[in-house]
């Protein structure tokens, strides 16, 4: 029994990570109609920076987190100014922007790989090697941290997008840029805001996951695919749906890994996804667009 609970907890935790990427997809998609395949690289960067700051340089947790927020924002500005806005100004279609972000993703992971020699970096856990025991079930605090972080981000974003004027403007930008401009919103600022939010969430998510899975320069692409799966299973454009979809995928993968093998977990996830797409392409909570 304890084993199943542990497996499910790990599944939820990894699922939250997928959900976090799905949430980032949603934030950007809602504001710009862009699918950002480079999102996984922001997570990877967060993890690598966390390794560099906390493990190599020995900076304390909170200061490292602040630095990572700053670096993620800088990365988002550069990415959005150099790549996304020029492409959107060229009236590039969905596919072109998506493939371009894929290219950017390869540039980021390639450059990081050259700097880190494509090694697996060993990040120290933030809470030592303590394990929490609850009625025979042992849980690593690291896993709980990922879940709590994702839920906090989800809560903040949900409140922000529904109840603040900036959040409403952000979502309105995704519907119609021209109208939004007439209403006194600067679409360029909203696009930047969306990418900034997504980058900070990914950066901190990467920081939380660094001790769980040792960071590697090439880990962005598999993560981004899982995040995409989470967003589609949940329903693209819906923030909590992405997280629910992510948890669903994560628990499924972790159960199959525990009882069969990790390769079967991948098969199960993608087979379920294909089934899902065949039956309900708009996702669990999505409306057909």
């Amino acid at each position, binding site marked *: 029994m304890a084993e199943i609970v542990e497996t499910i907890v790990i599944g939820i935790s990894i699922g939250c990570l997928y959900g976090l990427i799905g949430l980032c997809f949603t934030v950007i998609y809602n504001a710009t109609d862009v699918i950002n395949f480079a999102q996984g690289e922001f997570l990877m960067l967060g993890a690598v920076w966390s390794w560099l700051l906390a493990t190599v340089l020995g900076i304390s947790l909170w200061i490292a987190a602040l630095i990572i927020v700053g670096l993620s924002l800088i990365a988002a500005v550069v990415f959005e100014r150099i790549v996304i806005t020029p492409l959107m100004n060229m009236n590039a279609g969905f596919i072109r922007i998506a493939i371009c972000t894929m*290219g950017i993703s390869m540039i980021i992971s390639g450059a990081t*790989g050259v700097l880190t020699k494509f090694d697996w970096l060993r990040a120290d856990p933030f809470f030592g090697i303590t394990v929490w025991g609850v009625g025979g079930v042992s849980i690593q605090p690291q896993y709980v941290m990922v879940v709590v972080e994702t839920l906090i981000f989800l809560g903040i974003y949900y409140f922000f997008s529904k109840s603040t004027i900036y959040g409403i403007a952000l979502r309105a930008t995704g519907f119609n840029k021209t109208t939004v401009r007439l209403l006194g919103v600067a679409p360029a600022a909203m696009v930047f805001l969306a990418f900034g939010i997504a980058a900070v969430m990914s950066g901190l998510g990467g920081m939380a996951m660094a001790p769980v899975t040792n960071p590697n320069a090439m880990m962005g692409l598999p993560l981004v695919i899982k995040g995409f799966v989470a967003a*589609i299973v949940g329903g693209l454009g819906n923030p909590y749906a992405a997280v629910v979809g992510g948890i669903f995928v994560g628990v499924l993968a972790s159960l199959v890994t525990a009882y069969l093998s990790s390769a079967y977990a991948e*098969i199960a996830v993608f087979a379920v996804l*294909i089934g899902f797409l065949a039956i309900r392409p708009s996702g669990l909570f999505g409306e057909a667009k």
Partner: protein
Amino acid sequence: MRSTKPTTILIIVLLVVVATLPLFGKYVTYLSHLIGIAIILALGINIFWGLCGQIQFGAAGFYAVGAYACALLQAKLGWHVAYALPAAVLASLLIGLVTAPALLRLKIHTLALGTMAFALVVYYWLETTASVTGGEEGLRVLAAYVSGYRLGPVFYYYLITLFVILGFIVAERFKRCKIGRAWMAIREDEGCAAVMGINVGRYKLLAFLICCGYLGLGGALFAQQSGWITPMSFGIFYNVTIIFPVIVGGLGSNWGCILGGVVMTLLPQVLSGMQQYQVLVYGFLLAGLMFAPKGLASLLEEGTRKLWRTFSVVAHTGDKTEDRQHCGEN
């Protein structure tokens, strides 16, 4: 007459080079195999993606089906390659037919993810079912004999070249007939195409199946020429790089596929000394080309046209050069 001359010369030179390539040694022959296969794959993807406008991120899956079908039919059932090769294409078509109802309902994002999911299922299945596919170790493809004579790299070179030429002609034919125009109408606007009386579902299915056929053929040829296949050749990273020739050459252009196939096969060889920069270079190429969306073929075409114009202006109307160039700049 003047405008046809350079292309005629170019085609003759190209034919001579293609016909004599195996004389340049084993390495050149091997590279030519890879180029030929890349072109076949690119032509297939181009039909579904470039002409019909549907994203295909699952190409590696159908490619793997072709390769493994060809290898398994020979290894397990003892079929001759002459039967295994067409059977592999049929297998790929069959898998295409089975997955089509689920995949072709999807649009843009979901289609991208759905096709990619298919390829990943195939990849992980190949890795896990070791009893059939040999798992991560891979599978040996037996050498084929015709009346005691072993079919070697030179034979496969000409076979692949033959298929490239046939594939190119078929793709060009498709592009220029009613079916190709229907595909392009679907690419531009699906609703509009349907209103014009085009059966969108049927034409999409046709494009998808033709694409699967090309990919299966490419896979079977790959298995035959390499002699050993592993799931690694069809993995998650390959899923992205397989579409490179089409993107580099320019979506929708068959000549672009040839150019892309050549460039993207030779590039890793050029970069082989600095393996660690490969991802970086690919990334720059992919991202950079999205700012020139018609690909390398159109850039080259534009460049040569400009060069040719300047050249002919200089040659024929010496004193008017300045005027003409000035006009050109405007």
